[in-house]
């Protein structure tokens, strides 16, 4: 287990242990514990899952299986808004890379990362099925098409203040 996250989050892990102690003898404890753990940490990273596995003396795959089966669980911390930048062929040809670069610059994170204030997560995605609008990005459920890099600041600002 990586010690850094354990040390940085000593209190949270102490709380996690309290949760495990409270639920471990109840019926179907794993779902309950995973829910509470996700509330506590915002997601279920490997260190948290390993901690739970060890405390309950069950295989890590039991926990990972449940965490990946139910869509309400997430393994990585995500921002309030996930920005998906389509890198499919049509979008790529129409300048998706420049749009992505501009987003990176504007928010200050690389694709796959989440901003420190947990507002944005930036992702490069496969074809979003809106090739006619290329290049396309999605912010949660909102679609923006026919973009040029100079559009980006205005769009991002709309979500910043919300």
């Amino acid at each position, binding site marked *: 287990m990586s010690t850094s996250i354990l040390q940085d989050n000593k209190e949270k892990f102490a709380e996690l242990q309290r949760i495990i102690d409270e639920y471990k003898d109840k019926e179907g404890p794993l779902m309950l514990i995973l829910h509470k753990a996700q509330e506590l940490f915002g997601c279920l990273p490997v260190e948290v899952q390993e901690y739970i*596995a060890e405390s309950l003396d069950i*295989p890590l795959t039991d926990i990972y*299986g449940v965490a990946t089966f139910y869509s309400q669980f997430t393994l990585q911390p995500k921002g309030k808004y996930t920005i998906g930048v389509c890198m499919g062929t049509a979008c790529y040809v129409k300048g998706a890379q420049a749009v992505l670069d501009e987003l990176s610059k504007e928010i200050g994170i690389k694709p796959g990362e989440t901003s420190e204030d947990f507002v944005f997560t930036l992702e490069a995605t496969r074809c979003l099925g809106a090739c006619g609008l290329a290049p396309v990005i999605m912010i949660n459920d909102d679609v923006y098409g026919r973009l040029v890099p100079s559009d980006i600041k205005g769009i991002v600002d709309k979500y910043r203040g919300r």
Partner: protein
Amino acid sequence: MEMVKLTIDGIQVEVPKGTTVLEAARAANIQIPTLCYLKGVNEIGACRMCLVEVKGARNLQASCVYPAADGMEVKTNTVSVRKARRVNLELILSNHDRKCLTCVRSENCELQALSKQLGVDDIRYDGERIDYAVDDFSTSIVRDPNKCILCRRCVATCRDVQGIGAIGATERGFRSIVEPAFDKSISDVNCINCGQCIEACPVGALREKDDTDRVWEALSNPDLHVVVQTAPAVRVALGEEFGMPIGTRVTGKMVAALRRLGFDRVFDTDFAADLTIMEEGTELLNRLQSGGKLPLITSCSPGWIKYCEHNYPEFLDNLSTCKSPHEMMGAVVKSYYAEKNNMDPANIFVVSIMPCTAKKFEAARPELSSTGHPDVDVVLTTRELARMIKQAGIDFIKLNDEDFDPTLGDSTGAAVIFGTTGGVMEAALRTVYEIVTGKTLENLEIHAVRGMDGVKEVEVPLGDVTIKAAVAHGTANAKALLEKVKSGEKEYHFIEVMGCPGGCVTGGGQPIVPAQVQMEIDVHKARAAAIYDEDRALPVRKSHENESVKKVYAEYLGEPNSHKAHELLHTHYTPRKRY
């Protein structure tokens, strides 16, 4: 026992209450097809290949989980049953990577066999597939999710039989897959390389890392002196790969085949098993006398060793420092044998034929290279050896028996029983008893440590002390035993652990027996019986009476646990992460 009477396809059968319809049908000589079912291990009713009609029930029922009841009327071969089974099979096949021609499991594949049995001549659906990368980073286990049919037999084996859970069912729906947590390679998790999941898999989704090419290459290199050794359990299973019944002894044919393949010397790991008894027996007596760390725990099984390193670092000092027998042999070949024959160990290539996939990982451990070269260069499983014999066009069944080469090929009955659970303990007790008491053991066979009970115990009076010993096989049983030792509930002097259930005869590198055959034949019992026959047939049955072992001590090693013996025959262990 309470019995129930039912009719299956019009045939009356009487079976004990609690029997499933699938098993009851066997009593009427009816074989219902199965795919996800693995007796006693995986009975989850998932694949729906075993559907039958039960009078009064609304839908077709999965017979592998349906209990037989009094007065029940079952039909296993109706139009609707045949049709439903076939549709289910076609759906499984629709997104299967159907490349039988290049698949290791072709001709021993339950999916392929079913397809033939059910008369599938066309696959009407073409399912979408995810193209998965093959995970071949492990020294021992190769995972090919493209061939996986999600039956979960491996998951149940790893999780419940072995108590590990290195692989599990993850994601859902179309994305469902059997894999280690966090999308890691199986080489990066707590997998102990035991290969029991391979034995459980009905198809080619799990297989051993094939190292036959490396051996072919060495055999064709004129500068290399290529030495081979065979583990005890191989000789009672290899014949199965050539269609012989389970439990056939083929020691002499195996040796003949190895000579024909071109190995320069054919030695017997059994020699090194006798050597192990001398070293480990001495270690036990030393620890008893000097108040050393007890219980002493055996170290022959590399699956068990890795399990201990991951899960019980606090017991690493209890492990015997003895290398496993084939590693001892490798070290002796590259030192004693090399010096005696004026050879540079750099030009000696040692191949071990093992019933075991974990020994591939073991051979790659950097600490196991006493002469500055790996003690063992390549480990092949029983299955890979059979593959080489077939590739060479050798008509195995017709071969005449041949003997191992002298000295390092000489062994005893005590060594051959290393191949089954309880064997190391029995062999050790035969020797330790005689050395300590100076008396001759009247009855050599210690039945208390034989058989398939998960944990076996025995007490042997040795003069003024009574040795308390225990035997566990399969890592879930080992865990149960160690927990009792840890809590102080049990105390022992000596513990034998083998990582695989049943020990090496049912190791992860042995011929794969289809689930349907396992319903009829107790594979462990048949192979273990052959091992004990082999023991009884040998003129010498105690390790300390092996004249060749005595000779190697006299000429080279000195005495057991000597400085030289420590250099060549002993090792140390590494704590590892739990997951």
